[in-house]
């Protein structure tokens, strides 16, 4: 019979676990607490002094540095962070909170989960990042839509950005170590006990296939102390992050095309394709690694058709980073976009989303393509009606406003927030609850679009030189200009009309 083991943890707390191995990973065996509110994961190999010191820092100083600051409560949703270490039976273990219920399948696979039987199992990111798994196996209610998928990526980028700004690197970012809930737009990093502190603690895992940076694959055969060998770092995290975002928006791998590098040796072929000869499947100048549609199964379409759904459907901000990550920066780690850049681009792309007017569209949302006649790239439905677009401008000198390269699409239910109204506010974990409230919204009435001011004290209709107090509204017409605020950082928006 299984017994319950009681231990005193490094932080002085009492830890209990059921003495029955529930899972095992590459390095650890996992045991559950009796109430399943945390798990204890024991390392199979004896841990050396350096390893223990690292765990002490991860559960101590680094943890406090991230969670005991402004926004710490928000960040608890983005990380499953080890809280303490324990010693038992000559083995070292880490105590880790149990995953939130959002990260276990509620519906699971199709046909009331009879297809695979995965209900209540962990939502490993791999399920969602594959076009075939999505189309054939998962219950559609698990998949989310164009908006929640974007939000999921934003959460991943935000979590990685927070690690990197704390001077840490994850070192094994992959869909194994990121739990996703696309149905609600949540993501959470797990397996944080292997964090790399540059210059202090080297990585102990090489990473995960599909997410290795090319320079890591290309030098994997060298001795780990060889100065030519590339080991996981912040820069390889940046590659893995780009792959994660690309895969969770486009449901295909950016480097896995049909180019064959070695006909006789599968492993060498793969090493070259993911390493020294890695090539973006959508490289504009070199089409040799394109996905050949002849061999793609119907379940993988349309996502594997890069001509029908090119990466540019992610909009201008993300497209530019995808180019930096997979065209310019693929073999030049220094050119890779940072997590912070991804976070900003994802936030701005959220504002470019437009609801598809086809009620049966699977994606429900698409990113505005800058055209006067937008159409949903997923189902082909053209937009009908008036489509106002707000272009945001900021002032850096009295009376002079310059474009922010940031647009806000208008639709029913769309809101304006303080981070639109003021360039000094950015939506992240440091946002106060007052700042998180909307300041106004859009409404269609009698065929015209209006912006309704709720809480902006200084809103002005610039062309008509009228103040619009809270409770008032302004009609959105081509060329209209609204000044959101006269305070420092206050933005102005210029209205354009697309559609018809």
């Amino acid at each position: 019979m299984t017994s319950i083991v009681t231990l005193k943890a490094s932080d002085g707390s009492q830890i209990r676990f059921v003495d029955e191995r529930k899972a095992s990973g590459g390095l650890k065996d996992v045991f559950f607490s009796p109430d399943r509110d945390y798990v204890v994961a024991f390392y199979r190999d004896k841990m050396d002094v350096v390893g223990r010191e690292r765990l002490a820092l991860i559960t101590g100083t680094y943890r406090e540095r991230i969670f005991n600051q402004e926004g710490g409560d928000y960040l608890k949703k983005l990380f499953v962070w080890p809280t303490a270490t324990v010693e038992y039976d000559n083995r070292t273990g880490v105590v880790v909170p149990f995953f939130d219920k959002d990260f276990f399948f509620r519906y699971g696979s199709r046909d009331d989960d009879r297809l695979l039987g995965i209900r209540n199992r962990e939502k490993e990111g791999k399920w969602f990042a594959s076009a075939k798994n999505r189309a054939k196996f998962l219950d559609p209610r698990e998949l989310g839509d164009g908006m929640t998928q974007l939000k999921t990526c934003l959460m991943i980028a935000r979590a990685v950005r927070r690690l990197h700004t704390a001077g840490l690197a994850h070192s094994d970012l992959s869909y194994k170590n990121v739990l996703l809930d696309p149905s609600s737009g949540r993501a959470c990093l797990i397996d944080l006990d292997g964090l790399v502190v540059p210059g202090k603690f080297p990585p102990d895992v090489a990473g995960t296939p599909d997410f290795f940076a090319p320079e890591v694959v290309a030098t994997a055969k060298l001795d780990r102390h060889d100065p030519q060998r590339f080991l996981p770092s912040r820069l390889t995290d940046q590659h893995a992050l780009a792959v994660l975002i690309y895969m969770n928006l486009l449901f295909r791998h950016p480097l896995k095309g049909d180019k064959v590098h070695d006909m006789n040796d599968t492993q060498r072929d793969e090493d070259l394709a993911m390493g020294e000869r890695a090539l973006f499947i959508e490289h504009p100048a070199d089409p040799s690694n394109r996905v050949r549609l002849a061999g793609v199964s119907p379940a993988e379409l349309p996502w594997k058709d890069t001509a029908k759904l090119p990466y540019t459907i992610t909009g201008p901000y993300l497209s530019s980073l995808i180019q930096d990550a997979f065209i310019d920066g693929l073999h030049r780690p220094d050119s890779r976009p940072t997590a912070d850049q991804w976070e900003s681009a994802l936030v701005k792309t959220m504002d470019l989303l437009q609801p598809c007017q086809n009620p049966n569209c699977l994606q429900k949302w698409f990113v505005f393509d800058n055209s006067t006649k937008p159409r949903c790239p997923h189902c082909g439905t053209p937009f009908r009606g008036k489509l106002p677009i707000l272009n945001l401008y900021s002032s850096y000198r009295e009376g002079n406003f310059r474009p922010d390269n940031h647009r806000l699409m208008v639709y029913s239910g769309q809101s304006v927030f303080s981070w639109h109204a003021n360039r000094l506010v950015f939506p992240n974990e440091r946002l106060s609850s007052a700042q998180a409230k909307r300041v106004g919204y859009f409404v269609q009435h009698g065929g015209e679009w209006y912006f309704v001011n709720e809480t902006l004290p200084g809103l002005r209709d610039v062309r008509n030189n009228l103040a619009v107090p809270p409770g008032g509204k302004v009609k959105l017409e081509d060329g209209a200009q609204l000044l959101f605020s006269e305070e420092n950082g206050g933005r102005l928006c210029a209205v354009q009309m697309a559609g018809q």
Partner: protein
Amino acid sequence: MSSSRRLPVYLLIDTSGSMRGEPVESVNVGLRALQTSLRQNPYAIETVHLSITTFDSLIKDVLPLTALEDVVMPEIVCPNSGATLLGEALAHLLARVNVELRHSTPEHKGDWAPLLFIMTDGKPTDTLAYSEVAPRVRAFPFGSVIACAAGPKADPAGLRTLTDKVVSLDTMDSAAFTAFFQWVSSTVTSGSMSVGAATSLSLPPPPPEINVVL
């Protein structure tokens, strides 16, 4: 051909007379559990193709190489008595793998190196055929060959001519077989997850009921 590589997994299962009764029933239960747990893994379901061949006096392909999602698990039966033609079974399997394995061409990507699991509860009765085929199995570019010696009459040492990875089950009850098939599942799963890794396939730790023969 598809841009996704397949991971072919071949199971070779002893159905000689001594497997009758509880052992073969346990194998059937174990195979169903194997299928269930592989289907619950998002990597395996994308890549794994499964094949099952049984051997006694006859060699039967009870499941041709089939994508995991399409597998309908056959019921494995044992004759009353019979020889253990492991040598012939291996020769048959090598011939099949040679035909079925997709190699890379300039246009499409070939399969991952296949995995081979062999389970037997006795010694091969076709010793000459066995001694001829064993070096060919060793030389074949399998990703991994794992042999399981089940029960007291099995011969772990003899299996080592096929592969260095030999596990042995002390008993032939359902608990032992369940543990073995769980271990097969985690081996295949970690194989499907680590294909493409620059290092070779490493075995997960065996459950306590299994002894790895070193």
